[in-house]
Each structure stands twice: as C-alpha cells, then as structure tokens.
C-alpha cells in the first residue's frame, strides 16, 4: 500500500508538471463536447429544394408554399426544366427536386366517379441514405398535410367520396422533443472519457519504456500489481473527473435531463474505466513505442465507437455485429448512460450490465498484470 502511495505521488507530479497534459485534460474535452454535440446531430433543418412546377395552378402553388412554410425545406430555385433540377442535384445545390406535372390541379379536383391521379415526383439525392430517408419522410408529411387541406376545402368527405384516414397519435417517450443533442451528449461524453483514460494511461506506461526508466523499475522489488495500479489510478481519477465536467456541461449547456441516480452512473463509470484502462495498459505492455500504442489503441477505439450504437442504432446492425458488441465495453456504457440519464433507470435495470462490466474489468486488468513483464 505504501509503495502504491509513492508511485501515485510520482505519477501526479509528472502529470501536473507536463505542460501539454493540463490542456489535454481540462480544455480539450470541454471544447470537444461543446462542438461535437452540435456536429453529431441528425436533425435536418435545411433541405434545399428545387421546384419544377409545370402546372402553375393554385393547387401547385399551394403545395410549394406549404414546403416553403415548413421549417425544414428551403425552396431556393425554380424553373420549368427537370434537367436543370437534375443538374442542381449533381452539383449538390439541391437535395431534392420537386417535379409537379402538368394538369396536377385538374387531376386533383377530378369529378367523382372518374379514375384519375394527380401526378408529382420527388427526386432525392440518396448518396446519404439516412438523409434521403428523412427527406422522403418530411416531404411525405408535407404532401399528406396538403392533401388533407384539399380534402377539407373541397368537402370531399361529406360527399362520401373519400374515407377518412386512420389517425395515429404519437407520443415520444423519454425525449419528447426528439432533441438529438440530449441523445448524443452522453455518447460523446463516453468517447471523451474513454480516450482520455485509455490513451493517456497506455502512453504513460510505454513512455517509461522509451525513456529507459522501466528498466530501472524492473530491477527493483516492486510488485507487478503495485506498478499497474500506480499507473492506472491517476487516469482513473482524471477520467471520472472528466465525467463530472461533462455532466455539468450537459446539464447547463444542453439541458440534458439527469433522471436517474448520479451515484449509479458513477458506480458504473468506475467499473467501466477499470475495464478500458486495463485494455489500454495491456496494449502498452505488448508495445515498445508510443507510436505502436497510438495505432493499436486507435484501431480498438474506432471499432468500439462505430460498433457501439452511438451514431447508428445497434438494432439495425446484422446479427453477428450485434453479437460482437458483447465484447465492446463502449456499447455497454453508451446503453447504460443513456438509460440512466434519459430514462431514469436504476440499479436493478442495469444490474446485468454491471455484472458483465465487472467481469470485463477483472479480465482486462488480469491480462495487463499478467502480460506486464519485469524483464528487460
């Protein structure tokens, strides 16, 4: 215990004496959190629409103005040529082309009994499938709205011509305003504290190898577990501190609700950090330079992040990928932090995750201690 105390004292002196370390610990996460949360939003607020209105009727104008009135669409160009519209799609000046065929109004107001359909077309840039899906959904909503108004104004229902549509009422639970920021912030916070914890501790240990001080350490009677704990605890404390900063920023700058119990979250984070710091230290015990550590950790980080469900729902991944997430510590923490903050889940709801993560931490730390060799 005393030995660990001496190691901790030395580590903290070195961390706080390092001029680049302090900004990395205190400023980088704050700046990243404030910027990344805004960047990682899936809300589409500005869809550029190109309108080709060949009908030029009051109905077609009504439809276009409906799009103009929507907060999502921005009608910036208009012409009578579909080819022009396609050009705009190619040059990325438009995200979607709305093509209203000639005779649109006539077909719309057709007399009862005849079978005729009003024709219009949406050309959507689908390079980004998610975005295209959203544009499609938003447009369909606007058009459905338009249809309802037409039906109302023409009083078609009263005439018994068109059955009224089934009306579905939505209620968005846990995030009623569908605010992406409060969904993304916990995820980005997880990334940040993992990077800080895992990278810094891994780099720290391998730096001793590069400087040659690890050889000196290896000829002392220090125990392997003492050394690993001495290397782990400082960054464990710093990472938990980052979590606290992140939650404060989330609460005050992004109004992230904190519905669950903070202490449950801290408990889980503490276990989680032991697991990822164990991975980091393990990587550094098998590496001999800081570059190697960087590349290997980067590989793991990227894989963990993209598989974890932070940007894309895990449920939409193929089955084998979902199964791989069993060994992805990120996936656990992302799920847990969202459950606790946004849904107010308590200890019992996350008990399975706590058990899995504890096992994970035990394994990764054992590997790190086992693989650390007191040889030159």
């Amino acid at each position: 215990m005393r030995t660990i105390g001496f190691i901790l004292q030395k580590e903290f002196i070195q961390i706080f004496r390092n001029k680049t370390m302090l900004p990395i610990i205190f400023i980088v996460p704050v700046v990243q959190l404030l910027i990344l949360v805004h960047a990682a939003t899936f809300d589409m607020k500005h869809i550029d629409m190109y309108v080709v209105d060949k009908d030029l009727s009051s109905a077609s104008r009504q439809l276009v103005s409906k799009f103009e009135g929507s907060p999502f669409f921005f009608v910036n160009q208009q012409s009578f040529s579909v080819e022009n519209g396609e050009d705009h799609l190619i040059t990325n000046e438009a995200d979607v082309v709305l093509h209203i065929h000639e005779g649109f109004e006539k077909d719309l107001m057709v007399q009862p009994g005849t079978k005729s359909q009003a024709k219009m077309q949406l050309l959507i840039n689908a390079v980004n499938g998610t975005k295209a899906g959203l544009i499609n959904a938003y447009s369909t909503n606007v058009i459905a709205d338009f249809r309802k108004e037409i039906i109302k104004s023409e009083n078609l229902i009263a005439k018994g011509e068109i059955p009224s549509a089934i009306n579905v009422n939505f209620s968005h639970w846990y995030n009623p305003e569908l605010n992406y920021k409060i969904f993304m912030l916990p995820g980005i916070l997880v990334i940040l504290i993992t990077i800080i914890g895992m990278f810094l501790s891994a780099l720290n240990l391998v730096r001793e190898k590069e400087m040659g001080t690890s050889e000196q350490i290896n000829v002392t009677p220090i125990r392997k577990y003492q050394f690993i704990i001495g290397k782990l605890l400082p960054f464990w404390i710093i990472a938990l501190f980052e979590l606290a900063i992140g939650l404060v920023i989330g609460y005050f700058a992004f109004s992230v609700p904190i519905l669950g119990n903070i202490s449950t979250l801290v408990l889980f984070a503490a276990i989680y950090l032991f697991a990822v710091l164990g991975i980091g230290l393990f990587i550094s015990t098998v590496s001999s330079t800081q570059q190697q550590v960087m590349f290997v950790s980067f590989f793991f980080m990227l894989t963990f992040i993209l598989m974890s469900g932070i940007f894309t729902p895990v449920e939409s991944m193929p089955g084998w990928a979902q199964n791989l997430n069993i060994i992805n510590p990120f996936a656990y923490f992302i799920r847990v932090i969202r459950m606790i903050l946004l849904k107010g889940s308590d200890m019992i709801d996350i008990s399975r995750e706590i058990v899995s993560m504890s096992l994970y931490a035990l394994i990764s730390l054992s590997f790190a201690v086992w693989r650390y060799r007191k040889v030159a």
Partner: protein
Amino acid sequence: MAGENGYIVDVKELTKKFGNFIANDRLTFNVSPGEIFGFLGANGAGKTTAIKILCGLSSPTSGEATIAGYNVYRETEKIKQNIGYMSQQFSLYEDLTVYENFRFYGGIYGLSRKVIRKRTEELLHELNMEKVKNRVIHSLPLGWKQKLAFSVAIIHQPKLIFLDEPTSGVDPITRRQFWEMIYKTAQDGITVFITTHYMDEAEYCGRVSIMAEGKIKAIGSPNDLKSQYDAHNMNDLFIKLVRN
C-alpha cells in the same frame, strides 16, 4: 549476507542462448563481498546479457548462479531487494526533481519517508550537491546526473551494486570523482560489479574478468593478468585476449 561459500556472486556454468546464438557460454566466476569486480569485454561479448541474468531481469538457459545467496531462477525478487543497478542508459526521471527521484526510488525499495529524507541528505552531502536538491533532473549536466543516478541506486544500501558502463560519455574529472564514489561505496561494504570500456578504469578494480564471444577468457587481478599474459598495460592485455 553472502552465499553458502561466502561469495556474494557465485556463478557456475551459466549459459544463455537466444535460438542458436550462444550469448553466454558456460560462465564460471565468483565475487567476494566488498570487492570491486571489473567485468570487461568487447561490444557484443555478452556482458549485458550476463548482467541482466544476475539482476534477475532475465532467466539463464542452463547453469547455476546465486546473488547474495538467492537463486537467479526462483528468487529474482529477493535478489532485486538486495542489489542496486545503474545502467548505461540513463534512468532517472527527467521531469522530477533530484529529491523526488530519491523519494520515489527509496519508496519502492520500502524505505520510510523519514529514512528517505535522511539518506538523501547524506548522499547529496557526499556529492556536495545539496544545492540542486530541488532542481529538475533535466536541467542538470550529464556528469551530475550520472553521479546522482549512482546515489539513487544505493539509496537502499544494497549488498551489491551493478554498474553497467556508468562512466561512458562523461569528462575525465567527473570520471575520477565517480571512481572516488565507487571506492567509498566499496569501503562501506557494498560490493561493486562494474563494466567499462576504459582500460585505465580496469586498473582500479580489485579483480577483472575479460569476456570475448560469450566466454570468459581470463580472470584475476590486473597485475597478475598483465604478468601472466606478458602485457604492458590493460589495454595491451585486452587486445591480446579479445583478438585471439
């Protein structure tokens, strides 16, 4: 204190192989407590490999060796408690102060904070370096760092200290001071096991061994060896032995 037969370093038929390459070929020698033993040899002769085995950093392929009575196969951690080690690669923490280095190493050898303070004062006083106690290592000249590294290596008063080319790269005056420290240390009863490439330094040792191609070619006091091989000085002797 020492092994069964009174030797602090007792090595028999010690062999280390890396694949087909034999780095140490059946080394046999011993060192008595309080001796200054010079472990000489050309670059690549296998000195560092042997020292690493004797320090418990690496395991021999075959043969036997005990350090202060502890077995190099099974009792490496006990060996480590009883030896000091200073390598050619400089190894104090550059970003810590002199005192912080003493405190850290003293701490991991299990000394109390009080003892660490006392030992640091003694050692810095001997070096006449009390003034630099709170200076960061990185701001000191190389020769000072080497002397400090030596002091740190004996802070826990080991029975034996291994010095692996401690004087490479320092000026003649510092080298001389360094040897004064070595003599002082030996007088205090700490056995000194030193490697060096400076043949004038070899003359200062009580006994030396000379290695070439993984084998010990000769062992004895500098004067005995010189007359035995009909050499004018250690330089001459070294070249004669290593060439053949």
